[in-house]
């Protein structure tokens, strides 16, 4: 039997009107969790609409799995000057 090796989820915190880390590197298939630690609402919205968390209230989180390698730019739809990038690399295992 072959067991899939589950990759630990990576986390982006939304804190003080910024994505932390603003540039996150993950492998294909890895889960990325966006957590809103702010008093205000935020979103994590792909610039190409490849993904969109929708509105994240204080304390809300949203998880997305990146299935294709590439560089994904995203922003907060409520505060578009908040910018982040997820870099997804091919899984070399």
């Amino acid at each position: 039997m072959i067991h899939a090796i589950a990759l630990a989820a990576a986390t982006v915190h939304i804190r003080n009107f910024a994505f932390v880390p603003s540039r996150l590197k993950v492998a294909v298939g890895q889960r990325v969790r966006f957590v809103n630690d702010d008093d205000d609402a935020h979103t994590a919205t792909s610039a190409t609409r490849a993904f969109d968390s929708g509105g994240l209230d204080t304390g809300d989180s949203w998880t997305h799995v990146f299935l294709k390698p590439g560089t994904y730019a995203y922003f907060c739809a409520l505060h578009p000057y908040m910018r982040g990038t997820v870099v997804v690399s091919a899984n070399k295992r």
Partner: protein
Amino acid sequence: MRRDDFLSHLAWTGAGIAYAMSPHGLFTGRAVGATGGDAPLFVQISDSHIGFHQAANPDVTATLRASVDAINALPVQPRFVVHTGDVTHLAKSEQFDTAKQLLGTLRARTVVLPGEHDTIGAKPNAFASFFAPPKGGASWYSWDEAGAHFVALVNVFDFEKMGLLGSEQLAWLERDLRGVPTTTPVVAFAHVPLYALYPEWGWTTEDGAKALALLARFDRVTVLNGHIHQVITHVEGNIRFATAAATAYPQPAPGTAPKPGPLTLPHDDLLRAIGYRRVTLNDGVADLDDRKLG
């Protein structure tokens, strides 16, 4: 503070400061009494953020209700009450529903504009399903009333370039204003300020200058916005701008904090920072009378 204490503190005093917008472009503040002032032509409320439940305001529904009750208690009702956006915090159906029910208790008719909090998420048309434009028209529209030309604009439909009016809306505005005499007072509403109030915090409209260029030929123009949860006035030529206080919670003054966002104040100070605005047009020039809940 406990919730019942909070509610008991929601007594409306009716005192406030009136900002007279003089034809010379000067703002003069004057204190007004609880019963002072003329009957307003219309009333502006803004940024109710129904669904918000953090320390900056533990009961935004109660503070919107207090604003509605104060407006309904005016001895002479305004022609309409305009809500300049962010009716809800997260554009959820139950939040729209609560807001619509509360605004539906206003005695005056309502004009409701969307803010960016009302248009996020998977259902961008949710706002229109609760607050449809008049006569099934477009999201932006105009009307003539009391000798003035009123324009309701939307600058929150492009998430990545917020605020943005867009070329389609600007073309419509050009056509809309074409037949309006220069001497007609013009009052424009939009959620995000139309001028560069504080771009570092997104408090600007990227193509707002194009709208202002269309408005510049009129003798008397008033532009009323929300979004920044505080009263800030500004003058460019014949165009007088004023942002409104929220009914939910204040935000920091531009540049006085590392970031914008809900500003948590002691309860009494909160009530002095939120409320509604009575607006009269005196010879076409807007007279703003900001009333706070505390």
